[in-house]
């Protein structure tokens, strides 16, 4: 019997979450949201979602630009400011603290902390990287088949159903909408059965 380590920990979810986190980290957005999962779907090796999105002229470079615009203008799902900026308002230099931690305990000190019993119950905070927006949690970890997502197309459908205003703004900037994409994704997945 295979023991699941938690809800939504199937292979495709883990892979997409890791890619979404990388997209958020790359742009220093301070949170991982549905906007970043859209980028992860466009970059994923499973072409199902990418093909559906391509049918609406949504490509990875265009989507990256739209996500950057939406989040920098405060219309994303996450907090408007990242942890470094917030702590700077209190006079705390987060990059300096992170630098010191790495110098004292090694470059992977924080990752190791979260693999240890000490860090397991801590909130995922400023030293570790972005938080997960509630809309993204809903898309990936609730109201879903316990067996996991069969393809990236199913993840896309779940993402479109999450009610993310940030994703809606990104899709609008790309000339599309959740409703139009939902219809296309449903038809594509039905045809693939």
């Amino acid at each position, binding site marked *: 019997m295979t023991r699941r380590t938690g809800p939504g920990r199937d292979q495709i979810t883990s892979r997409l979450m890791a890619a979404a986190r990388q997209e958020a980290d790359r742009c220093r957005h301070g949170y991982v949201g549905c906007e970043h999962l859209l980028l992860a779907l466009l970059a994923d090796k499973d072409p199902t979602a990418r093909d559906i999105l391509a049918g609406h002229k949504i490509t990875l470079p265009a989507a990256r630009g739209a996500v950057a615009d939406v989040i*920098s203008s*405060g219309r994303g799902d996450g*907090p*408007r*400011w990242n*942890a470094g*900026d*917030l*702590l700077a*308002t*209190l006079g*705390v230099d*987060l990059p300096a*603290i992170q630098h010191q*931690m790495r110098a004292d*305990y090694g470059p992977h*000190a*924080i990752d190791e*902390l979260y693999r*240890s*019993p*000490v*860090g*397991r*119950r*801590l*909130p*995922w*905070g*400023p*030293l*570790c990287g972005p938080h997960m927006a509630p809309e993204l949690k809903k898309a990936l970890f609730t109201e879903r088949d316990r067996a996991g997502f069969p393809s990236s197309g199913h993840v896309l459908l779940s993402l479109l159903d999450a009610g993310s205003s940030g994703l809606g703004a990104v899709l609008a900037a790309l000339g599309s909408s959740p409703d139009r994409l939902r219809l296309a994704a449903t038809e594509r997945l039905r045809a693939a059965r």
Partner: protein
Amino acid sequence: MSEAISLAEAASHRDPQVGLAAVAALRQMVDQLEALQVKAAREDGWTWERIAGALGITRQSVHRKYASRRFPGRRIT
């Protein structure tokens, strides 16, 4: 308007949304720093009593926070 400028303006207007989010970020950062130091102290063989003393809290507080986490060394009783 850049993110940094809008944040500075919000802070200068004492926007509670920014202030509260900053406090939450600070709290999370302190929790992580504490856990990092506690982990290092246990790996160095520190007792729970010594850790509690250094943190300026009671042994019971340390117990509440960390007892159910399986640390190296002697369990808190």
